[in-house]
């Protein structure tokens, strides 16, 4: 929504919210609504005299969540992608930046056990939630995926591998014996420019064996 016209009428709220008052005489143009132009509810809201609160994008605000089991709080623009909060605010650089558009998977982390492309997820989205990064998978290299990755020497440059392993971990958690097709589907969002795909495939099968052997014990 383009409400810059009325920004001068806003005041900073205590909880990091901006209070917008639609100025008198403001006439809504269809073009101002962007994608919402067919939404009558939005149209009715944006009428002169109405007041509403929006998150103050660009202004720091405290967000609390868990990373690898530890509580953290960061004071950043809540629109900041989780990736940059992890890397720049928390100094956790295992999660990688590759595209910024959820196209390559290098930034994959887990949000409550599901794969999340952290480069497009605003940190506000993980408020109160549990995030797992590559550093939290197993720093001691005991996770079956890490053991398989090492055994088959999967990485080359290694830059994409945090994301590859995090995507594979979600797959294995949901499917202990994935087929090649399951792997293709789960791993299709992760690019490796060095071309380690044949080894990633083999290593996921191997990790599945290791995990199943671990269970059988």
């Amino acid at each position, binding site marked *: 929504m383009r409400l810059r016209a009325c920004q001068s009428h806003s005041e900073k709220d205590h909880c990091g919210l901006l209070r917008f008052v639609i100025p008198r005489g403001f006439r809504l143009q269809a073009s101002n609504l962007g994608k919402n132009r067919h939404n009558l509810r939005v149209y009715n809201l944006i009428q002169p005299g109405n007041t509403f609160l929006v998150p103050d994008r660009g202004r720091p605000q405290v967000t609390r969540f868990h990373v690898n089991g530890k509580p953290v709080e960061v004071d*950043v623009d809540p629109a900041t992608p989780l990736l940059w909060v992890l890397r720049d605010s928390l100094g956790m650089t295992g999660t990688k930046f590759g595209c910024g558009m959820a196209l390559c998977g290098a930034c994959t982390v887990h949000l409550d056990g599901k794969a999340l492309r952290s480069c497009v997820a605003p940190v506000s989205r993980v408020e109160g939630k549990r995030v797992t990064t590559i550093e939290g998978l197993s720093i001691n290299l005991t996770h079956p995926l890490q053991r398989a990755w090492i055994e088959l020497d999967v990485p*080359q*440059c290694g830059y994409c591998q945090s994301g590859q392993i995090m995507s594979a971990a979600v797959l294995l958690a949901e499917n202990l014996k994935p087929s090649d097709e399951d792997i293709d589907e789960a791993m299709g969002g992760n690019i490796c420019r060095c071309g380690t795909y044949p080894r990633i495939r083999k290593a996921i099968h191997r990790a599945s064996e290791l995990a199943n052997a671990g269970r059988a014990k």
Partner: protein
Amino acid sequence: MSAPAMVGRREFIRTGAAMGGGLLVSLYAPLPGGSSSAPAAEEKDFALNAFVRIGTDESVTVISAHSEMGQGVYTSLPMLLNEELQANWSKIRVEPAPVDKVYNHPVFGMQMTGGSTTSPAEWERYRKMGATARIMLIEAAATKWGVQASTCRVEDGVVIHAATNKRATYGSLANAAARLTPPANVPLKNPKEFTLVGKPTLRLDTPSKTNGTAQFGLDVIVPGMLTAVVARPPVFGGKVAKLDAREALRVPGVKAVEQVPSGVAVIAERFWPAKLGREKLVIEWDLGPNAGLSTEKMLRDFRETALKPGAIAKKTGDPEAALKTAAKTVTAEYDVPYLAHAMMEPLNCVVDLRRDSCEIWTGTQFETVDRANAAHAAALPADRVLIHTTLLGGGFGRRANPNSDFVVEAVHVARAAKAPVKVVWTREDDLRGGWYRPMWHDRFVAGLDANGDPVAWTHTIVGQSIMQGTLFESFGIKDGIDSASVEGAADLLYGMPNLQVDLHTPKIGVPVQWWRSVGHSHTGFSVEAFFDEVAHAGGKDPYELRRKLLANQPRMKAVLELAAQKANWGSPLPPGVGRGIATHFSFDSYVAQVVEASVEKGGAVRVHRVVCALDCGLVINPDTVRAQIEGGIIFGLTAALKTEITLKDGRVEQGNFHDYQMLRIFESPEIEVHIVPSGENPTGVGEPGVPPVAPALANAIFAATGKRVRRLPIRASDLA
């Protein structure tokens, strides 16, 4: 910002042992086994030479003169060294070399990683360094025990004197050994006695690449560091005409907006505000002379140019006369586009510029060049510039920039920032930033005799020079021929009585650079796809014709035969599937590949299987060789099927992985790699896997559909 649970940032800068009279500041190299703590105290670490240090804790630190960008040199170089040193392999760790002429590439005379040359060039030196150190350790033990050195032997990091049953570990001898004069002319093992080299060895860097501890340039954090992004001109060579930074400066976290020679830098506390700030910049650009560039027009120009004779790169026999008398001629033209390297780690560089020094952290392939260029930009003598080479999240040639573009820019930004600064390139910056594999056009005319055998072969190449105007010009350009433009064409291995290769080198304002396999990336495709056309025109089996014309090339003939045998050349295939074959000689290695592929109804290509045979001389780490070839094939398939950089109105039309698509796991074929056993010196491995795959695929598509592919990337619309 507040971070109560600040994850402990490992201190990664540490002071190393004194070496070569100077203080060595080294970047912490990740250790095998996931150990992320700093190694034992450095003062107990003794340098036996510039390439190896031994600690009293028995740790053996091998200094890598070459950058690790995925090709495995952080394992293969220690393997070479330890073949002679004979320390306990589990004690080996690796550290990147600082910039010093002692680490210069033995062939190129500068510190660099490229041209698939690390193993061939270091094959001897690293073994010598290991042998020298071993002899010094033995000498130290012999002196201590008062025995003859020749009566001592070593085993797994221990010097043993059997007669007196004395044993001393390398760690206990390191201090004394480091004081000895290194011996000259050390004898080396006969390769037949190797116990480590040639054996599949797990990479030392893998553990750190599976738990997030591996440190790439983008991961470097320097105390007090700011982060910057740069708005660069939308057209190559453009300049800032007018800048309004007011809105950008209002973004919380943005500290400064400064003009630098390459554009406008937005300097902020962190990446995100820098990026938001850049979006708010209002810049009027003076677009300069390249605003009209269009690849479509270039394509037309290239095709016209190819009809005219170019500078002669190679001429044998009398091709003109042979073509006139030929029973049949075949003509074809091939096109390949500009390509970006698209390393997964976008370019970045950290610079701490002080009044009298400049410290740089980056993943580079070009330390000596970068140091010289950075020194010039910083107006400092080169010895005041310190470069820490980090792990590279892919290089493929992009991080070997003759102008050090990403390093020099960061120096300028650091000057403006007045603080340590990390310049980060977004994916869009990286793809639109130029320094591409050149666009190339290849035109062929071949003459066949009455038996269908080729008797004349002319090849006209049109494409920009990579080395022109760089410091490599004198080395790489002779008589107007850039060797990189004609490699793989002028050195054709096939016996051809009448051969001509000529070259046109248009000057175009698009910066170009080496890209994995360089000139071979176009000649491999065009020569081998055209060879297939010639074979079919003469009614020959493309495999048999290759065999015949490789009669005087036993090594290439052997890999060709091996690939064909492993792929069951000539055996029936499922309906719709075609088989194609290609060979290519590059970086002194011999490669042949067979591709099995089919084309779906809409023209989509499916690659089912790639069988590769190669002869790269003596193999150091067989599994790394296989990995490099697998990766090279996928890299080559991405170029064959997916990627092109195009320009319209001077602007690059692609920006991210939605319009510059990489091959993905579900498109990745089954790959088999067969290595020919060899006792010859090692040759290149990083690049030679790339060139043959596109032509083998094009030839497979012809076998499957009868349609010729003469332009990359292969378009579904060309095959539907």
